[in-house]
C-alpha cells in the first residue's frame, strides 16, 4: 500500500544542521517533513493533535528520532509513544551515534521500526523511511477498516449480534435456533440481515472481517 502524497516524516533532532539536512534530503526524494528541535516540541504537537480528538495520526507518518538530545531524550519520547500505542501507526527510526547502538538495538526490540547510525548512508535511510511510511499507511488503513467494522457491528440489534457470534463460531442455523430458543426461520432472517449490514456474503468472510478488525 502506497503511503500517498500526504505522508509526512517527522524529524526530531537537536542539531539544526542535521535537521535541515535531513529535511532537504527528504524533500529531494519528494517527501514531506516536519522538523522539531526537541522531543518536548514534538510531544506538544502530538498532544495538540490528540486534543483535537485524533487517536491516530491523520495521515501516514514516521518519526526520525535522535537518541541523544538535551532535555527529554529520544528514548524517553519513544517510551511515551509506546505507552500510548502510537508507535505502530507512526514507526520510529532512531538516529544514533556509534556509542548508542546497543540502546538503539534495545529500542528496536521494544517496537521501534529501525535505527540508523550516523553518519548514515542517506538514500538507504530514505528507503527505510519510505518503508516505514508504507507500514504506517497499512496500519492506518487497517485501523480505518476495523473502525468501519466496529461501526457496522454497532448498527446490529442485540439479537442479530447474538446470531452473528454463533455464526462466526461455525454453528449451523438449527443449533443456533436451539441455543437462542428461536425458530430456524428467525435465525435465517437475522443471519441474512447480519450479512447485509456487515456487507459480507458468507460466514467465512464475516469471520475474517471480524478477526482483522479485532487485531
Amino acid at each position, binding site marked *: 500500500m502506497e503511503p500517498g502524497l500526504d505522508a509526512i516524516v517527522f524529524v526530531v533532532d537537536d542539531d539544526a*544542521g542535521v535537521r535541515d539536512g535531513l529535511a532537504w534530503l527528504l524533500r529531494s526524494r519528494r517527501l514531506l517533513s516536519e522538523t522539531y528541535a526537541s522531543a518536548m516540541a514534538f510531544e506538544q504537537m502530538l498532544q495538540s493533535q490528540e486534543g483535537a480528538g485524533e487517536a491516530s495520526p491523520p495521515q501516514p507518518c514516521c518519526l526520525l528520532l535522535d537518541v541523544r538530545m538535551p532535555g527529554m531524550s529520544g528514548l524517553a519520547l519513544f517510551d511515551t509513544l509506546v505507552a500510548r500505542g502510537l508507535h505502530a501507526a507512526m514507526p520510529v527510526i532512531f538516529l544514533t551515534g556509534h556509542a548508542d547502538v546497543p540502546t538503539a538495538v534495545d529500542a528496536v526490540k521494544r517496537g521501534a521500526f529501525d535505527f540508523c547510525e550516523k553518519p548514515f548512508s542517506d538514500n538507504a535511510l530514505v528507503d527505510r523511511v519510505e518503508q516505514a511510511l508504507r507500514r504506517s499507511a497499512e496500519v492506518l488503513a487497517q485501523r480505518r477498516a476495523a473502525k468501519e467494522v466496529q461501526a457496522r457491528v454497532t448498527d446490529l440489534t442485540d439479537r442479530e449480534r447474538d446470531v452473528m457470534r454463533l455464526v462466526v463460531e461455525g454453528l449451523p442455523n438449527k443449533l443456533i435456533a436451539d441455543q437462542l430458543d428461536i425458530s430456524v426461520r428467525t435465525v435465517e432472517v437475522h443471519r441474512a440481515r447480519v450479512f447485509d449490514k456487515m456487507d459480507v456474503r458468507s460466514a467465512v468472510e464475516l469471520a475474517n472481517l471480524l478477526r482483522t478488525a479485532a487485531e
Partner: protein
Amino acid sequence: MGLGRFARLLWRLSWRLQGSWRRWSLWLLLAVLVVAMLVILVWLAGRYEASQVQSRIERDTADAVADIRSGLARNVQSLQALQANQPLPAEWGGAAAQLLRVHRELMRLEWRDAGLSLRAHADTPYRTMAFDAPDQELQVSSDTQLTCAAARRLNGPSYSSSYFVPRADGLGLEVVELCLPLTRGTRITGYLVAIYGLPEILSDLIGPQISRHQEISFTEADGTRLASLHGAVRRGTRKFSAQQLLDLPGSALVLRMDSWQGAPNLFPNVLTALVTFMSIALVSVLVLLVKDNRLRLQAERDLADALAFRKAMEDSLVTGLRARDLEGRITYVNPAFCKMVGFAAEELLGRVGELPYWPPERSDEYLARQANRFAGELPPRDGFESLFMRKDGTRFPVLIIEAPLINAQGLHTGWMGAFLDLSEQRRIEELSRASHERLQATARLATVGEMASLLSHELNQPLAAISSYATGSLNLLQQEHLPALGALAGHGSGRPAPAVSADLELAMRRIAEQAERAGRVIRSVHDFVRRREQAREATSARDLLDAIMPLVSLQARKLGVQVRCTLEAGLPRVLCDRTMVEQVLLNLARNAMQAMDRPGVLDRRLELGVRRAVSGERGGWVEFSVTDNGPGIPAEVAARLFTPFFTTKPEGMGLGLSLCRTVIEQHGGFLDHAPGATTGTIFSFTLPAMKPA
C-alpha cells in the same frame, strides 16, 4: 663558689672511694679480729700453762716448808728426849753423838747450865766446824744469849736468827741455833742449844721428790740468800719462783724455791689455734657453700625458666633466626627458619661456606657478601633483600636483618640474622600492583572511550548534515527533468530550473557551513593539546628517573631484572611535561622488562641511560635511552611498531608506543629504536635541553 664545687667533687670522689674502701675495710677488720683472737688464744694458753707451773711450784714450796717444820718439831722432841733422864754429862755425850749421827742437819749440841755456861757439847761427825775455838766454849755468843733469853721467856724452844760460821777451810756455813730450856718443875735448870746448818736442813728435811727439780734456798726477808740446794740443772730459760715464810719461834726464814722451766711451748698452741682457725674457716666455708648452693639452685631455676621462656618465644616467632660464628658456621636456627627453608635444624647446624638454601646460581655472590661481612663490613640497619631456595628448589625472597652477636664479655662472637619471608608480601604487592594497573588501564580506556564518543558525536553531526545535503543535491540533480521540488515541498516558486539551482546553492552553502563546523571541532582538540604544551617545566633527568624508579624496581624484582642507571655528568635540565615524559619512560622500561620476561633470557639487565645528544641549532638535546637484552624486535613487528592499535601483547591496547611517540614529538624530540649491541633493543628519545639563562 669554686671552693664549694671543689668540695663537692672531693666528696663525690671520697664517696666513690669509700664504697670500695668500706668493703675492703670490713674484710680487713675481720682478718684483724681473727688474728687478735688467735693471738689472745695463744697467749691465754701460755699463761695458763705458766700458772700451772707456778701453782705447782707454790705447792711444792708449801710442802717443803711443812717438811721442814715437821722435821724441826721431831728434832725438838728428840732433843727433849736426850735430856729426859737427867743424864750425866758423859752419858749425854754418847747420846748426843748418837743423835748427831742420825740427824745430819744438826751441827752441834751444847748443854748449858742456867747461867749459859757450857756443861757438855757434841759435834756432828760429818763436818768439822770452827766451834772448837776455845773462847767459844767459855763465853756464850750474843746470839745464844738472845735465843736462850727468848726461850726462857717463851718457856719453850726458840730459834735464833741465822748467822755465818766460818770454817777452817775458808768456807762458811749459815747456821741457826735452837735453844731449848731445860726445866725441872718451873725452874730452869739449863739450856740445850742445837745448831742447825741451813744447807743440811734443806737437803735432809725436804723430801727428795721436791728438791729434785727445784732450786731451794733460804733467804732473809730482804732476799739475801743464806743457803741453797741445787736440786736440778737449769732446763729452761724461764724462772718460776715461789717463797714461803718459815716462821719459827723466835725467828723467821723465807724459803724460796726457784724452778727453771722452758717457756710454755708455743708450737702446740699455734697448732691449736690453727686447728681452731681451720674449723672456723671450714664452718664458714660450709655455710657459704650452702648459701651459694641455694643461690645456685635459685639461679638454675631462674635460668631454666628464662630458657623455657626464650624457647617458647623463638618457637612462636614467624621470623626466622639464624646465628653464625665468626667462621661462618651456623650455630643456631629457630623452627621458623627451618620451616622457611624446608631444611631440618640438623641439616643446617655446623654448616659452613656454601649453604644448602642458597640458590646455586647466586652462591658466588652470597659467598662474597659473607666474606665482606666477616671482614667487618656492617650490614644495613634496616636489612637487605636476598633470594633463598627452599629444599624443593623453589626460590623465595627474604628480608635479612643482621646484627653482630656480642657475648656477655662484650666480645664479638658472630652474627645473628633475622629473616622475613617476603614471598607472601611480594605476592600481595604484585596483586595490588596488577589490580591497580588494570584499574588504571580501565580508567584510561573509559576516558579514551568517552573522549572518542564525544569526538565522534561532535564530528558526526556536521558530517551527517553534510552527507544529507550532498545526497539530497545528488538526488535533485538526477531528478532535474522532474517537476520542481519546490512546488511539492511548498517552496513557492513555480519555475523548476531556478528553483533547483537555488535549492542546490542553499545545499552547498549548508555543506560549507557544516564542514567549517567540523573544522572547529578539530581545532578545539588541537587547542586542548596546545594547552598541555604550556605545562612544560625545567626538570632534571635524575628527577625523571627517580620518579619512575619505585615502579620500575617493583616490577624488576618480580621478574628478576637488574636495573642500572647511567647518567652523564653535568647534564642540563630538560624542558618537558613531566608527567607525560615519566609515562613515556615508564612505558619503555616496562616494555623492555616484558621483552626479557621469557624463559630463555637468563641474564636480565635493564639499562636506563641519559646523555647529551649532538647539539643542534636550537641548543642542546638530551637523549634518554632504555636498553634491554631481550630477544630483540622481529622485522615485521618493527615495521608496524608505532602504528596505533597494533600490539603483540594479549592485553595490550596498542596505544603505548604510538602515544609515546606522539608525546615526544609534541616536545619536539623524536623517539626511535635500534637493535642492541648483541641482543635486545635500545629505545631512545630526545628532549630539548634548557638553554642556559
